[in-house]
């Protein structure tokens, strides 16, 4: 009885909800609101600041738009996988200028310049001067002015149609004719002299144009939309994409990488580079502040008091220890005899038999119990005075049987 209920805590009244203090209920002023919410506000602000800092750190995300490895809505994994598995096309990616150049030189190859605008003017000039491999196709997606000039001179960008526009092919290019109407909005072009134009708009400008010199083909598309995972299954997009990209055995995707493709760009900065130089002095000052805080916290308000407490031993410790000893020694016989002894005593009491000096008379007890329960007395003889159980299961059973017998004897 040494533990007692703690007295009601004397909490700061401002921390209590207003309903607990009827007299103070109307006084939920701005000040109390501020006191109640300030720490939560600080916590929210801290989370926002840290979040903004994390968001500001440049990430080197691996999957951009039109990445053939990306399953995002803007990726092109779907078309790439189908070309590989169904059309038997081998595809790879090219990032650097030399990789692109190799792809241009290769025979039987389709090169997709997904983002021609990511290449510098010099790179485009150098790439355009490369003698192209036989049986090859170069697909330009939404090229800018310089790329158009370099790879398809004579073609000029004209106008812009919403990308979701569905257009009919209306041309002889077999891929387009097979595919039928597709989502080909975006940029549209005035054709050069020998070009085949497809998907015209109302003013006679074309969203797709094809120029063939020998077996080397250049195809210009005004839109990237139809290749993406998200739109591939709409209209004739898929058929057109497979037709355009699956014509040759090799397929090379241009994969722009800002860091590598544009070596002139500044390197990624660590957060330390972004901090102004003066703040290292600020950090030193913070160190001094921390030292002062250590001195503040280190000084205790008086010494720790330790107390000699009385020893605490559970009274049942010896009994439980004895139980463990029985268990370790597998003292089934002893345990059974103890249980039987107790059961005999209680049964005798319940039946009104005398049990002087501990144990009642065996014959009288079995007879009386048998009469009460209507069971054969040999049965009870076996239960109350039988041999020691041979295994643990038998001991458990004996204990349960004794319990049942006692319970039945006590029933009126």
């Amino acid at each position, binding site marked *: 009885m040494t533990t*007692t209920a703690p007295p009601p805590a004397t909490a700061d009244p401002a921390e209590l909800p207003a309903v607990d203090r009827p007299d103070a209920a109307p006084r939920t002023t701005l000040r109390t609101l501020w006191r109640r919410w300030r720490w939560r506000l600080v916590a929210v602000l801290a989370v926002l600041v840290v979040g903004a800092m994390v968001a500001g750190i440049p990430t080197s995300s691996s999957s951009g738009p039109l990445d053939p490895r990306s399953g995002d809505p803007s990726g092109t994994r779907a078309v790439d996988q189908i070309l590989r598995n169904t059309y038997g096309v081998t595809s790879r990616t090219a990032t650097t200028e030399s990789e692109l150049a190799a792809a241009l030189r290769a025979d039987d190859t389709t090169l997709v310049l997904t983002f021609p605008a990511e290449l510098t003017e010099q790179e485009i000039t150098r790439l355009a001067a490369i003698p192209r491999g036989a049986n090859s196709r170069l697909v330009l997606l939404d090229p800018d002015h310089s790329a158009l000039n370099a790879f398809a001179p004579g073609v000029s960008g004209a106008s812009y149609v919403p990308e979701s526009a569905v257009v009919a092919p209306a041309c002889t290019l077999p891929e387009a004719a097979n595919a039928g109407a597709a989502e080909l909005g975006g940029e549209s072009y005035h054709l050069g002299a020998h070009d085949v134009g497809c998907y015209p708009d109302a003013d006679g400008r074309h969203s797709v144009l094809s120029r063939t010199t020998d077996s080397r083909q250049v195809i210009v598309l005004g839109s990237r939309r139809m290749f993406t995972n998200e739109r591939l299954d709409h209209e004739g997009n898929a058929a057109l994409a497979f037709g355009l990209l699956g014509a040759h055995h090799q397929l090379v995707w241009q994969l722009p990488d800002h860091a590598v493709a544009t070596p002139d760009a500044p390197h990624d900065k660590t957060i330390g580079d972004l901090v102004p130089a003066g703040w290292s002095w600020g950090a030193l000052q913070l160190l001094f502040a921390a030292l002062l805080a250590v001195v503040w916290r280190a*000084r205790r*308000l008086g010494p720790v008091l330790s107390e000699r407490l009385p020893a*605490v031993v559970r009274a049942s410790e010896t009994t439980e220890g004895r139980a463990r000893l029985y*268990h370790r020694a597998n003292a089934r016989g002893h345990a059974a005899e103890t249980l039987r002894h107790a059961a005999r005593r209680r049964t005798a009491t319940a039946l009104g038999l005398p049990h002087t000096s501990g144990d009642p008379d065996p014959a009288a007890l079995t007879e009386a119990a048998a009469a009460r329960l209507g069971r054969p007395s040999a049965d009870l003889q076996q239960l109350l005075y039988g041999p020691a159980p041979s295994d643990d299961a038998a001991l458990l059973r004996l204990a349960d049987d004794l319990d049942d017998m006692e319970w039945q004897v006590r029933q009126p």
Partner: protein
Amino acid sequence: MALTGRTALIAALGALLVGLVLPSWTGIGVVMLPLLAAIVADLVLAAPVRRLTLERSGDPSVRLGEAVTVDLLVGNPSRRPLRARIRDAWYPSAWAPGTSLTASRHSVTVPAGERRRITTRLAPTRRGDHRSGRVTVRSLGPLGLAGRQAGLDAPWRVRALPPFASRKHLPSRLARLRELDGRTSVLTRGQGTEFDSLREYLPGDDVRSIDWRASARRSVVAVRTWRPERDRHVLVVLDTGRTSAGRVGDAPRLDAALDAALLLTALATKAGDRVDLLAHDRQRRAAVAGRSPSEILPAFTDAMALLEPALIETDLRAMVSTALRMAPHRSLIVLLTGLDAHQIEDGLLPQLPLLVKRHEVVLASVADPRLDELVNTPRTTVRDVYGTAAAEQTRADRRRTAELLTRHGITVLDAPPESIAPALADTYLTLKAAGRL
């Protein structure tokens, strides 16, 4: 010397100044030097701690489980005002659980030459004397940046008395005592009852108590009333040895025994008997004898407050001989001890003839409810069966010892802690009604 969080905060805010305006040693100096100067000024201007006067007052004792307040009067004889954090330190068991940190700290402002009172609330969790530690005072300067700190002595003691939780049983036992006392018409006649007075017969009275001789002298039928004997001697003997240290439920056995002794004492005092107390293990720990009825309970609780179970074997021979010396005439001797077979057989049995020849002896022992729990829990593993068997063995041993003592004419009580006190009181009433005191 001690700093405050404010100092560290100012230094941390100074980092903004250093980082934005003056990123150099100059900037750090601009922040730190004035701060250090302010700290020194604060230390100089803080009120001196060692000249403070401390005075204690408050309750010297409390029942275990109740709260008590102790006042500390802080006097500031200096000419500077004192702004201080004060820790009134007490040993851990003096506090209500979990409050030691908050309840011991006080913030106080004492103007120059005045005194202020601070109140500390204690709720001891342990019986016995609780002493205060040193009072630590941290006197802050006017800027609140730094302060002087020192420990001062202001000793005080709060004695936690036994809770006497069984006093709720007292009214019903007193009612039964009054029934015995001849004040009501229900009478129990025994060989030890004393003739009290004659009164008129009322329907319901036992016809055997009609005094025919007296009725013949009067015109009405008179009955004799009886009252139980008074002015008997009761000696309560507490065993504070090893067996009393075992925890039963939440508290040691000794606490339950103290509770039972207090209920018996209160009851017997009301019944007009004299009660003495002896606490003994290997030697005498406490003895209270010959107190007047009005002061007996306070004297007992005071003596009991300091009793602690000792982890040594009780010397029952010495205990019995001390008890015999304290009870020269016929008494009711109540032994509150264990029922360990070997201890009883070695220590008590040889002394029994002496004890029983002259005195009525009751032996009360606190049983462990955990044994019943072991027996009655559903058994699923063989480990449980062994637990049951061990518990049955312990119970059988205790019962055998109890039967042995009963054969020697001792009344034996073996009851769990919550019912030992009422059981002992009932035994006392039964003995009194039977006139065996």
